[in-house]
């Protein structure tokens, strides 16, 4: 059965090649969709996950519900009085990892619902941990000492180097878009997650002057043990009614909401792609069975059972599908090499898991779409087929 299917494929090479190319194209698109979704979800979850038991206190606004703090208009800040009130009423937090932060998007996201590409975080020297959450430095150090010191996240450093036309190093002067001043690079961080990588950390006072925010900050971040964060947040909500208290869990929920529309869109595209693959295989196998009515009749006449005929058609469809899947996945592997390099958008393991799932789906598609043609082939009456011209 397998040998017959293989011989038939070789005998009709052009048809086989075109079928495999069609399947490969569909699979490439499906794998790309999966990779984008997997990468996007992991990026957001990693970024928020690294915040552990962090609580954010930010200006209250109904219009801001579910909005990332990094896209706040410049006018919405917490005043010094509000900040002092927060620190006086909050208890049980880790002072070394808690601080007031002035946040400003310097380079907007490349697509809706993606993280910003560069975010300035102004923070008091000695409190860098509240923003960097333990991210290690590739070079230099992750401590602010000078007035115009700046610590760059991995991708922020890459972007600024590209703008400067050379690879920036610790000690170099750098211009930050939208933040006037002659900044000096104090440290460059290793690749970690989308938010940390996009970070540009500077002293709070200098940021307030540069961005003309007076004594205002964007939010206060408080660090709690993970198991105590929710309870602490509930307490703060009751004692600080004039501000929004957001936990990591709540942030995850709002990210989830934002991602839902993207997920649905991707699922729609993937569905359309798989439907195309089904149509291709169905048409090819149906046409093949119709062309080979006499041949199938002969095989039945000389002893092939219905099961043999069905099996032959299904095997042929499975070969097309798997071959197309392997080619599509391999090409996509090379096309997405940059996505997987150096703390990239998607890990090799994630890509492999997506690829295996897609391969399994491709096989299922083959079997489903070839089922009707194979059953039709099995119903060929040898007598009628032998009269067929």
């Amino acid at each position, binding site marked *: 059965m397998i040998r017959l299917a293989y011989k038939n494929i070789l005998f009709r090479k052009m048809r086989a090649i075109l079928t495999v190319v069609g399947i490969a194209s569909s699979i490439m698109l499906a794998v790309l969709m999966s990779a984008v979704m997997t990468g996007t979800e992991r990026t957001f979850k990693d970024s928020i996950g690294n915040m552990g038991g962090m609580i954010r206190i930010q200006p209250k606004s109904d219009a801001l519900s579910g909005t990332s703090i990094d896209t706040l208009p410049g006018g919405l800040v917490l005043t010094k009085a509000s900040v002092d009130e927060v620190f006086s009423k909050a208890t049980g937090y880790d002072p070394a990892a808690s601080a007031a932060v002035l946040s400003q998007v310097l380079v907007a996201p490349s697509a809706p619902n993606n993280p910003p590409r560069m975010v300035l975080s102004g923070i008091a020297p000695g409190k860098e941990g509240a923003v960097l959450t333990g991210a290690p430095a590739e070079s230099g150090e992750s401590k602010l000492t000078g007035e115009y010191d700046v610590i760059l996240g991995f991708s922020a450093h890459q972007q600024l180097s590209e703008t400067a036309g050379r690879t920036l190093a610790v000690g170099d002067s750098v211009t930050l878009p939208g933040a006037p001043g002659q900044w000096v690079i104090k440290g460059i961080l290793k690749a970690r997650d989308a938010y940390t990588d996009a970070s540009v950390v500077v002293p709070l006072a200098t940021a307030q002057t540069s961005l003309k925010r007076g004594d205002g900050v964007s939010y206060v971040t408080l660090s709690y043990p993970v198991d105590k964060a929710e309870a602490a947040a509930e307490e703060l909500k009751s004692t600080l009614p004039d501000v929004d208290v957001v936990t990591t869990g709540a942030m995850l929920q709002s990210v989830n909401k934002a991602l839902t529309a993207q997920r649905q869109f991707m699922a729609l595209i993937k569905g359309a792609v798989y439907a195309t693959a089904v149509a291709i295989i169905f048409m090819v196998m149906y046409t093949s069975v119709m062309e080979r009515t006499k*041949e199938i009749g002969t095989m039945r006449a*000389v*002893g*092939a059972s*219905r099961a043999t005929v069905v099996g032959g058609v299904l095997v042929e469809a499975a070969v097309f599908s798997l071959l197309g899947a392997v080619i599509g996945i391999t090409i996509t592997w090379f096309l997405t090499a940059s996505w997987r390099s150096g703390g990239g958008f998607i890990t090799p393991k994630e890509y492999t898991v997506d690829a295996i799932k897609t391969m399994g789906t491709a096989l299922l598609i083959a079997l489903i779409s070839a089922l009707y043609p194979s059953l039709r082939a099995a119903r060929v009456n040898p007598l009628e087929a032998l009269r067929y011209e």
Partner: protein
Amino acid sequence: MKKVYRMGRSEAFYALQGVDLVVPEGDFVSIIGASGSGKSTLLHMLGFMDSPTEGDLLYEGRQVGRLSDAEMTRVRSRDIGFVFQTFNLVASLTAWENVALPAEFIGAGTARQRRERALELLDMVGLKDRAGHKPSELSGGQRQRVAIARSLMNRPKLLLADEPTGNLDSTTGGQIVELLQKLNAEGQTIVLVTHNPEIAARSKTVYRMKDGLLRRVVAGDFFAAD
């Protein structure tokens, strides 16, 4: 046996009006008749590709007319060899692969054993040197010889040939009939259907089929008009 085809609610076509036929082992039977006389219908029934509407079809004493498709396929694959007018070889397979097909379908022997037997049969029909060629690379006569070799793969008890020379010139057709005579001389039971009396004359027993009725032909009656 009778075979009736219903056309619409009231019309019926009797392909076989009432046929009594016994094929002894080792016989070479020809059934001669004009086109539409019912001879191919009878042959297909003998090959368990069709069953009678009325009457009994017995094979080695067993009633086979009422068997399921799967059972008929099984009997057909093991005990019946077919030779068709239009050869009906699988275009994507080489000559030896076509010959080995019936054995492959019943899972007989290993792949190597099947190949060896296929080459043996091709040698017997004089085509061992063309074993690796596809049907498109063979002449009509060569294809028919491959088809005959294929029909013998599973050592069938009965070989059925439906107009085996119908698509061949007279010289090649004559060679094919010679081959069949040789096989019969070695003990193969053959039933051949033809419209050509000269072909039929080379068998041991001849029947004439006319309007769905079968009659044994005796000496002197052979070339009588239908």
